[in-house]
């Protein structure tokens, strides 16, 4: 299979194009043009190749795998950070930090959402949760004192959407103190 077949070149139209073509085939392309084509090919291969590497080993900015919403969610595992206490107020039952007024600067921010997932994963896998918590602190409306519960949720998205049904399990409680200055 050659490139014309793959890229669907219309062979029937070719003779007319040859007649009209001002620079493409009448003179051989300059060495600069040939080098340019090589450089563009390398650029295209880099975007593709480093994108694939990004998919496996983590993103190599500014390249990306572009694997966005590739999977259809079947059974979802997600994490929630719930406030048990915050600056003297007690929440019974504990409430999601994104729903507590004046706790976060941008409760709907995707960065906050990703941070909560990182905190949840680190808690469940018992790895170092401190770096994610340090960045999470930057997103608080104002630093304070309280207790957060890390909760793991398991659900089928359509079922949860339609019936609200899901499985929630508390993994840990994190006491929170203002950062030392």
């Amino acid at each position, binding site marked *: 299979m050659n490139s014309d077949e793959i890229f669907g070149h219309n062979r029937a139209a070719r003779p007319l194009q040859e007649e009209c073509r001002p620079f493409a085939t009448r003179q051989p392309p300059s060495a600069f043009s040939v080098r340019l084509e090589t450089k563009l090919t390398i650029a295209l291969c880099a975007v593709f190749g480093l994108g694939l590497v990004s998919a496996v080993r983590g993103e190599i900015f500014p390249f*990306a*795998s572009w694997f966005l919403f590739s999977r259809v969610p079947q059974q979802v595992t997600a994490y929630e950070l719930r406030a048990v206490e915050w600056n003297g107020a007690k929440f019974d039952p504990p409430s999601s930090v994104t729903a507590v007024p004046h706790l976060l600067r941008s409760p709907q921010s995707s960065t906050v959402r990703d941070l909560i997932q990182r905190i949840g994963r680190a808690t469940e896998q018992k790895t170092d949760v401190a770096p994610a918590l340090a960045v999470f602190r930057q997103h608080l409306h104002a630093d304070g004192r309280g207790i957060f519960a890390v909760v793991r949720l398991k659900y089928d*998205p*359509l079922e*949860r959407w339609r019936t609200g049904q899901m499985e929630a399990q508390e993994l840990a409680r994190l006491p929170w103190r203002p950062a030392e200055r």
Partner: protein
Amino acid sequence: MSIPWTRDLDACSVGGAQWLVRAFYAFVLYLAAQALPDLGGLTRVRELQEIWPVWWMEWLPPGQGATIVFFGFLFAALLGVLFPERFAVRLVVALALLEYVALRNSEGRISHSLHLPVLVSFVFLLLPRQWHLAQPGTESARQLALVLRGAQAVMLLTYSMSGLAKLGASLYELAMGQVSSFHPSGFQRVIAGRLLETGSSSPFAQWIIDHPGWLTWPLLPGAIYFQCGAVFAAFRPALHQLWGLLLIVFHLGTGLILTIHFPVSVFLLALFLLGSPFRPTSFDVGRVLTELPLLSAFWRVASRRMFSPNVPASLPGGPGSASH
């Protein structure tokens, strides 16, 4: 397999190509100016998780590095509008844009909404000398056209990668007996998963989930088709406007339904594809059908059967053969 860089290269309008390069640098300045209201937040003293282009900020007092990056970007973007013909200026713009986007993505999460301008700014480093003075039919015009095609190909390759990932994931899900993108409820699941994850809502999403899946079933497989075919469209000028429109509608749809917004990509698609200097002067449906990735084979067979005078009416495929 070689990449058909020179295919229909002569279709490129040199004036249109020169205008497009200048418009891109004007857009970079717009990005810098648009960030001004965020300046306080960007330069605020805070803990960052610097990605590699801004690692040096660790060595500066808090907030100072971000100030340098932002004002450097603003200054470079101004230079870019004034002197886009100079390689050194284009290099400064590309590096400043890289730094700025890296800074914006150093808060613990990488968002992809600003990746395309960074990639295009680096492709534009390959523009030939005197591109701004190129005349039709010259070697300089050919090189300008090649670089623009490169920018279009790089942009569209990112969509093809996204489409291929969805296709691969769907085949895996089918093999595992799971709900895939090709299942009537696949799109509904994607929407429900996204909105539950973000806690957001959308009337369009609610409508799609509340109605039978087959009503909106073609949307996701359709998106996978034109995402996968995007990089091929880069080399087929007849498809530029159609693919530009499809991808823009795709972004508007994901914005309205999934609350995922890519306004920068919408602008670049409008600039590089709807306003493509390679686009034909008129929209020829027949030409578009013969150029469609994969599906063109069906059109070729169908048109051969419908229009070929050599096929007798009594033979399969000939006129009137369907009645027998």
